[in-house]
């Protein structure tokens, strides 16, 4: 019996590893050279978490029009904080600026619905901390007034670079793939750019919103790439798509062929990538496409690249063509405890609890064990449904008990799986040892600050070590130590 059980386990093991073997053999031969070939590319390392994209992958994007309230976190971007510009009781139009501040690393915030400001108070945000939020209750505008307050359209190919960047900032656009980095900063590189890369890899399991965007509005993505290429003055645009979204490629190719900018001579192409996590990580994407590595501590522009998520590109297109600021976004709601996996477009600030109450999302309350904002590899587990959709929310996962596995941490058996999985080659096992022994100088040397926190090491660890968790804490400790050191020197 035991032997037979063992064999069953081993067969499963073979099945789960066969794919990986092929990949590792291929990724060992990391290419350098001709960039025009249409071969399928990838990076070294990585993991193969279960994809489970079929649940929501075939569902067209639904547009949510009416919500009972929106709770809009004031600070949703990476950078300096901004302040509310409205008062409680004030009527705001959809698209009206409701918070802003001076400073390069800031973006303004806009009301996502027309209505009355009910409260301005700290609420739980999707990063699991409390932050100032503006609560708006939808209401019809006073007689004779429009419910919308959009900017006038602007032709991106006729305006200057400064005008374009100002428009992107005014629209409050941040990186919508997860980081929330202000787009107008990213699109003002100080180094020459050779590639604009549209990130449609969507390597996070479960999520399908980028896939649906590729299928439903490919022309918007192509337009977005063209606008960014014009803004950063790049000769080539690449739309990067993972192999598991192959079926979307014909739509995108058609959109490229029909694009007036491409007809006028702009060079935009599709690059197919291996389905491997974290293929959509900015650095991994750049390495897969250009063969270059972003230098440690550097930015994509150091190797001549600008990478933008497809959601961000669509938001940029809307900002120019319709004058519409970033007030709504697409995201995937899925998971084992979600009876209605789907792709939604909803106003920023929509509470998931309201979606559940309105039966837009049906849950299996019995099996629900975990709610995650983002994907299962890098997303944040939150304590309740009452969390708003933010500018960087790419998905909401309702995980069932079976999916939300919890493991005891065991001792490291030094199998080296994490070392092979690490896309940044920072030897997680050795890094963890250095951190546990408090040797932060060694940890920094190994590459603690180069860790992208993708979670591949924790995923593959047979002892379920909390590797990436250690690195997150370790980074903060190391930064604090360095700061202290700098102060002492001064």
């Amino acid at each position, binding site marked *: 019996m035991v032997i037979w059980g*063992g064999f069953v386990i*081993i067969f499963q093991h073979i099945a*789960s590893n066969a794919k990986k073997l092929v990949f590792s053999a291929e990724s060992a031969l990391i290419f350098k050279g001709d960039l025009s070939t249409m071969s399928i590319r990838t990076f070294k390392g990585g*993991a193969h978490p279960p994809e489970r994209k079929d649940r929501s992958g075939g569902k067209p994007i639904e547009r949510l029009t009416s919500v009972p309230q929106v709770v809009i976190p004031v600070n949703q971007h990476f950078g300096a904080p901004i302040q509310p510009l409205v008062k409680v009781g004030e009527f705001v139009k959809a698209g009206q600026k409701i918070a802003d501040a001076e400073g390069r690393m800031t973006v303004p915030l806009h009301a996502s619905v027309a209505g009355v400001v009910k409260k301005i108070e700290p609420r739980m945000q999707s990063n699991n901390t409390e932050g100032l939020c503006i609560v708006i209750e939808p209401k019809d505008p006073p007689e004779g007034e429009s419910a919308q307050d959009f900017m006038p359209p602007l032709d991106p190919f006729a305006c200057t670079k400064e005008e374009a960047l100002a428009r992107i900032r005014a629209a409050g656009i941040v990186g919508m793939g997860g980081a929330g980095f202000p787009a107008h900063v990213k699109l003002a590189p100080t180094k020459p750019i050779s590639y604009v890369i549209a990130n449609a890899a969507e390597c996070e399991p479960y999520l399908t919103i980028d896939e649906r965007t590729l299928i439903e509005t490919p022309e918007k993505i192509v337009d977005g790439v063209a606008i960014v290429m014009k803004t950063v003055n790049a000769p080539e645009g690449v739309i990067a798509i993972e192999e598991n979204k192959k079926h979307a490629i014909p739509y995108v190719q058609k959109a490229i062929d029909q694009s007036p900018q491409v007809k006028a001579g702009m060079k935009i192409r599709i690059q197919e990538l291996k389905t491997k996590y974290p293929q959509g990580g900015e650095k991994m994407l750049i390495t897969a496409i250009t063969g270059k590595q972003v230098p440690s501590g550097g930015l994509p522009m150091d190797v001549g690249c600008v990478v933008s998520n497809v959601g961000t590109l669509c938001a940029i297109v809307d900002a120019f063509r319709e004058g519409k600021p970033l007030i709504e976004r697409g995201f995937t709601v899925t998971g084992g405890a979600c009876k209605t996996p789907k792709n939604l477009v909803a106003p920023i600030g929509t509470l998931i609890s309201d979606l559940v109450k309105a039966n837009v999302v049906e849950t299996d309350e019995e099996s629900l064990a975990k709610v995650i904002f983002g994907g299962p590899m890098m997303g944040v587990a939150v304590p309740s449904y009452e969390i708003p959709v933010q500018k960087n929310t790419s998905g909401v996962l309702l995980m069932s008990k079976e999916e939300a596995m919890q493991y005891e941490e065991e001792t490291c058996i030094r199998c080296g799986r994490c070392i092979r999985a690490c896309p940044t080659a920072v030897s997680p096992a*050795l890094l963890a040892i250095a951190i546990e022994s408090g040797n932060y100088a060694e940890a920094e040397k190994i590459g603690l600050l180069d860790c992208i926190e993708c979670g591949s090491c924790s995923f593959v660890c047979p002892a379920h070590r909390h590797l990436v968790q250690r690195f997150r804490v370790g980074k903060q400790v190391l930064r604090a130590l360095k700061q202290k050191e700098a102060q002492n020197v001064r």
Partner: protein
Amino acid sequence: MSDRKLLLSSSPHVFSPVDTPRIMLSVVIALMPATAYGIYLYGLPALGVVVTSIAAAVVSEFLFRKLIKASMTVGDFSAVVSGLLLALILPPSTPLWMVALGAIFAIVIAKEFFGGLGANPFNPALIGRAFLLMSFPAAITSWSMPKGLGLPADALSAATPLNLLKQGNALADVAKYFGASDTGAFYRQLFMGYRSGSIGESSILLVLLGGLFLLGIGVIQWIVPVSVLASTFVFSWLLGMDPVLGLLTGGIVFGAFFMATDYATRPLTPYGQAIFGIGIGLITVLIRKFGGYPEGVTYAILIMNILTPFLNKLRVKKYGFVPPPKPAKPSKEATK
């Protein structure tokens, strides 16, 4: 909704199904063909050694962890693997009490004293064998003839091919001793595993099969076994020994796939692993050529185990590695 408790944990939220017990179990399964063949060759005594070794290893780990009130780790099958490995590198005629002693020494002294699984600096099974070899040299170096070879069946007078070669016998005579007509047939016989030796190392074919299985499912990686075998071949040849025979006899193939690849005691980094493997091959050949023992795989691996922490310093370059700025040389052009 509000009264229900949701799980909160740091990402990632999904995990690979490959866990420690599964890895250990796959090693056990990989060793099954060689074990079964050993029992077929040497009969009940071999079965006794295997069972005793595994039982002693598991029980001693259980009792020791109980004694020091540590978490129970018997469920991870690592003691089973250590016990089985120890049995497979012992002569089939080893007295069972010695086997038990060796297994207890391997688990308690070589593994648990250092903190248990993953923390031991030396391969427990090899420590167990080295301990027995030093304590009872006569018992651990007397070999049984496989059944049905048509040779003198005196259990304690048989010799391994390496023994005979060490004593200065010509290869042709050694071949004749094992009933092979010429050296080619002798090589084939060695490869298939019809010779005297430790329980598990006889059949190169079955050991290779198990090793390739582990490689195939990704439990071990190719660098260590390949570098061990390649360096054994090259150094044997350089020192004027028959390189093919060097691989086919003794425990080098078994050691390369099942001992040198032991997670806790081999280096973690690719470059470290390559040097580790080359070192094992070199030391094995040196012991075979110049040492007092006919076979040196055990000590070769144990010696290289000592270097593992240092070899771990040979890391691969991290992604986006930027070489630290060198101090500007006075005469050369100024660096930025």
